[in-house]
């Protein structure tokens, strides 16, 4: 039962897929289509039983869908119940519990099954059960060791759990490393510049073949000295790295500049943001007092105000 339900759900999916993409039907799809057709027949007969003369196709489809969902749900729950009790195949009681769970009165079932006007439906046409394509086998599957019962699932393919040592000789050869780094960098640079050249304006050195040796067009900038003088981020990064490695000989000089940087930070503030009071950071108060530079002094207010 569960089996067929599972199949049904499968047919649903594949049915919609095949509908949209009109491909030639595979055996699997045939099988599922047949199941679905049977379900439709069931729905139709039930409708007839209820006294319908005819039904819209969409309505039938909807009902089929509902039925299929119901059966699927029953199958799924039954399976879950069965597995919960450490079995692998659902029994009748599993199904019953499921039905009860889903709010179905099981007692009415035998009566319903024996109703008089029950229509007999022909068995679905026998189609070949779909062949599950063989999963790729890599290596020999391990058999269970003796202490594992045979009903336990088989081992998966060895490649899924066995660690394969993939390292070749670790590339410690200096030459190769350098070679690799160099060509990698070159490739990246080339790809990047080509990309930039392709996506932006270019200049060419040749008139006959503009795409050969494309040069990214020169664009004037409004403040050209900034990019030319300031180190690029990449360089700054390397600088940091090298600096951290050479911190020992840097510490001496580092002490002084740090105080400078503090100083002129406050200098900036005073002169650019201009707090009239010239607030001095408390920690640096001593040093600040030492520096008497006219450019650090606060800006005076105009005389009229001072009189106030």
């Amino acid at each position, binding site marked *: 039962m569960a089996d067929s339900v599972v199949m049904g759900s499968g047919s649903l999916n594949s049915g919609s897929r095949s509908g949209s993409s009109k491909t030639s039907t595979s055996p699997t799809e045939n099988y599922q289509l047949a199941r679905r057709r049977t379900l439709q027949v069931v729905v139709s007969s039930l409708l007839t039983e209820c006294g319908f003369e005819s039904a819209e196709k969409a309505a039938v489809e909807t009902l089929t869908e509902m039925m299929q969902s119901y059966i699927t749900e029953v199958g799924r729950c039954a399976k879950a119940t069965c597995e919960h009790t450490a079995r692998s195949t659902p029994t009748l009681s599993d199904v019953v519990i499921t039905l009860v769970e889903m709010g179905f009165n099981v007692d009415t079932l035998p009566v319903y099954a024996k109703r008089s006007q029950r229509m007999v439906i022909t068995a679905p046409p026998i189609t070949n059960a779909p062949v599950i394509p063989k999963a790729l086998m890599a290596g020999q599957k391990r058999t269970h060791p003796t202490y594992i019962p045979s009903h336990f699932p088989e081992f998966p393919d060895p490649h899924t759990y066995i660690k394969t040592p993939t390292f070749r000789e670790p590339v410690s050869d200096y030459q190769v490393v350098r070679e690799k780094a160099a060509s990698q960098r070159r490739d990246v*640079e080339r790809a990047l510049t080509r990309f930039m050249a392709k996506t932006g304006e270019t200049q060419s*050195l040749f008139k006959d073949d503009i795409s050969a040796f494309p040069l990214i067009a020169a664009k004037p900038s409004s403040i050209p000295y900034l990019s030319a*003088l*300031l180190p690029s981020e990449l360089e700054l990064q390397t600088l940091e790295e090298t600096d951290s490695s050479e911190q020992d000989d840097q510490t001496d000089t580092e002490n002084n500049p740090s105080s400078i940087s503090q100083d002129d930070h406050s200098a900036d503030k005073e002169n650019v943001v201009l707090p009239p009071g010239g607030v001095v950071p408390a920690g640096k108060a001593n040093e600040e007092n030492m520096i008497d530079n006219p450019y650090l002094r606060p800006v005076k207010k105009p005389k009229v105000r001072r009189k106030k």
Partner: protein
Amino acid sequence: MNRKKDKGFESPRPYKLTHQVVCINNINFQRKSVIGYVELTIFPTVMNLNRIKLNSKQCRIYRVRVNDLEAPFIYNDPTLEVCHHESKQRNLNYFSSAYTAAVSAVDPDAGNGELSIKVPSELWKQGDEMKVMKVYIEFSLDQPKGGLHFVVPDVEGSMAERAAHVFSFGNQNSTRFWFPCVDSYSELCTWKLEFTVDASMVAVSCGDLVETIYTHDMRKKTFHYMLPIPTAAPNISLAVGPFEILVDPYMHEVTHFCLPQLLPLLKHTMSYLHEIFEFYEEILTCRYPYSCFKTVFVDEAYVQVSSYASMSIFSTNLLHSGMIIDQTPVTRRCLAQALAQQFFGCFISRMSWSDEWVLKGISGYIYGLYLKKTFGVNEYRHWIKEELDKIVEYELKMGGVLLHPTFSGGKEKDNPTPHLHFSIRHPHTLSWEYYKMFQCKAHLVMRLIENRISMEFMLQVFNKLLSLASTASSQKYQSHMWSQMLVSTSGFLKSISNVSGKDIGPLIKQWVDQSGVVKFFGSFAFNRKRNVLELEIRQDYTSSGTQKYVGPIKVTVQELDGSFNHTLQIEENSLKHDIPCHSKSRRNKKKKIPLMNGEEVDMDLSAMDVDSPLLWIRIDPDMSILRKVEFEQADFMWQYQLRFERDVVAQEEAISALEIFPTPASRLALTDILEQDQCFYKVRIQACFCLAKIANSMMSTWTGPPAMKSLFTRMFCCKSCPNIVKTNNFINFQSYFLQKTMPVAMALLRDVQNLCPKEVLNFILDLIKYNDNRKNKFSDNYYRAELIDALTNSLTPAISINNEVRTVDNLNTDVRLILEEITRFLNMEKLLPSYCNTITVSCLRAIRMLQKNGHIPSDPSLFKSYAQYGHFVDVRIAALEAVIDYTRVDRSSSELQWLLDLVQNDPVHYIRHEILSMLAKNPPFTKAADSLLCNEALVDQLWKLMNSGTCHDWRLRCDAVNLYNTLFGLTRPSCLPLPELGLVLNLKEKKAVLNPTIKSEQGPGGPEVTTTSTLEEEHVVMEPAMSGVAMAPQGLKRKAETPLGSSPEPGQVMQEEPSAKASIKSKFPTQEEEDIDMDTVHDSQAFIYHHLNMLERPSTPGKEPSSVEQAMLSMPGTPMPTLSKESTSSKHGDHHHHHHHHHHEHKKKKKKHKHKHKHKHKHESKDKDKDRDSHAFSNSPASGRSIRSPSLSD
């Protein structure tokens, strides 16, 4: 000029300036305009001061008040348009003298100025009390083209966010461009400076910042500066911008300013400034004279360094981070220069232009001492040699550089530099190149003085000058006290003799009063019998730029037994000098050889001549003469000198000498030097290039891998894989420089087919490929740039098959590889720009080289796009250089036009200047060769450029003059159409026609003292034109072609007017040899008209002459006696009469004009006449005195 006067300074002005207020109320960045006023406090030094002349250019003056009384003023600037447009003269001689005249006419050192203010009569009538006068001038500047430079980047945001800034600049005394002043280095006064700027900006100026006050609306603030130390107006400057402020951590009175975002760079760059301060203060034993010092870094700077009183303005491109190696010494040098000029140049100013050499000399000299201390003796000696070579090369090529010109008589004949196409009378008429060489020579001469009197005395002299000046500076204004702050040649020499007690007269005479360098040729023979070295030293003192040297010369002889100095006396007739040798030629047993420095070394003596004990000989090893020495000695001697002489100068000399000895021994010597890390790195670098040259000469016999390859591999490549360079580590700068240079030199190697060897090219490509800077503390941008330069050097001309168009398909495979690298580098620059875009610069050069060698199609459009405004300045220069090269090679007139348009329109002054100087260095054509480019339109355009288009920038104008000279020469450009009617007027007889061009640069006037008659004055006015049109060579040719067999002998003509001639001769004994090449009647008319016109101008000094005088007056003006006709079209039999006729016509015409002009002025105002008399456009200093002349005293 002031040499002979031992007394204090005599002001050329009838008043003394004591204090000046400059107040700039408003600076509008949007409109690029400035509004402000100045107030000058002056003490009249004469009775009845009725006229005040000040300098002012391009300022719009709204009102002038003297002691609160409105004063009329006249503004006249003859330098705006040097020759008047109606003149058809296109002759550089003519221009140069007219230009000099114009500059003289406004020269503050002669008491002149553009602005002439009439003192209200109420004031000058009571003038005998010598009351203080306050001259108040309101002015504005709108879009100034000179003096102030606005940088306003075109981005979003407020002016502060846009990093907009403005700063003052100029060549020499150019302060008049931004406020009215006495723009002289010799007129000192105290200053009060006020600048009201936007609240987000900072105004940096000279002196102490007293206070900063908000305006009432709180949106602006006013910076108040006081400069209590008497300072000349040219030393006043201003910079306003949203600067970031850094107080020097070591010296709190020193403040640094840079543009937004550059603060980290500023911190690094300025971290060693205090060392320079300490150094100068220590050697001069004198504190820095000002109470504070400011450095400002600005964009689009005019020059890299300019020093003003208590502040210096630098180019922002000098800033660098700690990762940059190459820029560091350059920037340090600039800072040191700026600071040296603070002492000598700003604090101590000069009396006159002819004393400039003392200031430049001293500041350059102490800067040299700083170099020696900071960079070491090797670097210092290398620098001295470099400077010496530079000045020698320049003088030999262009003619002498005169440090202390004297213009005694002011007559044409006294022109001290007749070989130059410009006048050296004024700083503003000098070619920039000449001025650079002038500075170079000045400091070299100071070094010569040091050699003579010892450094100790030298520093004492400086100290004396400084302490006198600082005593004077602290005085309140007293008569002549402040002149202690002015240095003069005589004062300086007097201090030297007082301090040292030595007579350096001959030295000064040789190098300061005289131009030229000495050119020695030396050779020797060893006389075995007498054991004597026979040295022969010859001199070339006849070629241009040379002079004869008489005096001592030091010769160092390295013998087997040691090094010996000999002082020989160079005398008039003695060429040969016998020097006894100390050692016997017999080879001693294995013994160490003592060197000059006491070191004893082992030498392999097998290369030596068995008979001679001489290892090497050096002439003037201490460079104590400004000279070039060409010395002949055997190759092995040069090799010994290279290996064992410890002086870098000797090593460098040996290397350049070895270039002509391509032998395995030379190769070995050079390789050994290259490998020796004890050796000075610049010597090793030079050895690289020499080795490349030698290798090319030895091509057929060369064995082993290409030169330097194995060396490079050994030094810089991995041990395990020799084809891969080590990852960069530039911690050792010497090897860094070597690593950079060796590939560049190697790329110069050529194989038998004259191609760069494949091995070398691949080697360089591998260096690029494996370059890895990730672990390096320093940036590798210069290194990568030089690798590209190496690729460029490896290029050789493409094999061209009948001028086919260059396409991608027929690209040579090697070139394809090179091009790929260049493309990648250039594109990467857009994503990750390198410091100062060095890589772009190298790539552009490489592309131009590819084009030039015919590998890729020649096309300037790429370069033109990189030359646009908005690229980094170095990139622009490189691109422009390529365009200029293209212009020359492809003779493209449209590109030339494009360049000239840029000269007129580019916002950056430095770029304009560079275009013109690069064009002059790599001219599209020269006067020697014909070119399609050379046409009348171009002549006119260039003429216009130098005549009026560059009036806002002295330097640019001189550049234009230089270019004009390069393209067309001194005389009339050959491409101008042949004149219909030419006449040569000659004041001297006979041979004057044959007399070539140059004798007439000199401007008129000068210190000539004209006394009574206006005649002489008039004459002076006329002179420039006459002298300007000296005989053109083509004039000669034309003359020869004259169909008339009997061309008139000048002498014959003379005879027709003996009386006229006699009268002239008697009046002007020195006035001789004046040729005029009048091309057309029109020209001659224009010429005369021009002069009349000059007279007509209100500023012309023309006391109304009596009519008798006037008649005489015109005579010198129209050169008369010799008239020779040159027109090929002439049909007249009697030339003389014809010309004669003309002549008279001119005379009449002139007279007529004169009258007319007189007339005209009568109409204008009754004041006019007086105005005309007294001020401005006087070509002679007589005008300076004219104030006292009776006609003015009313």
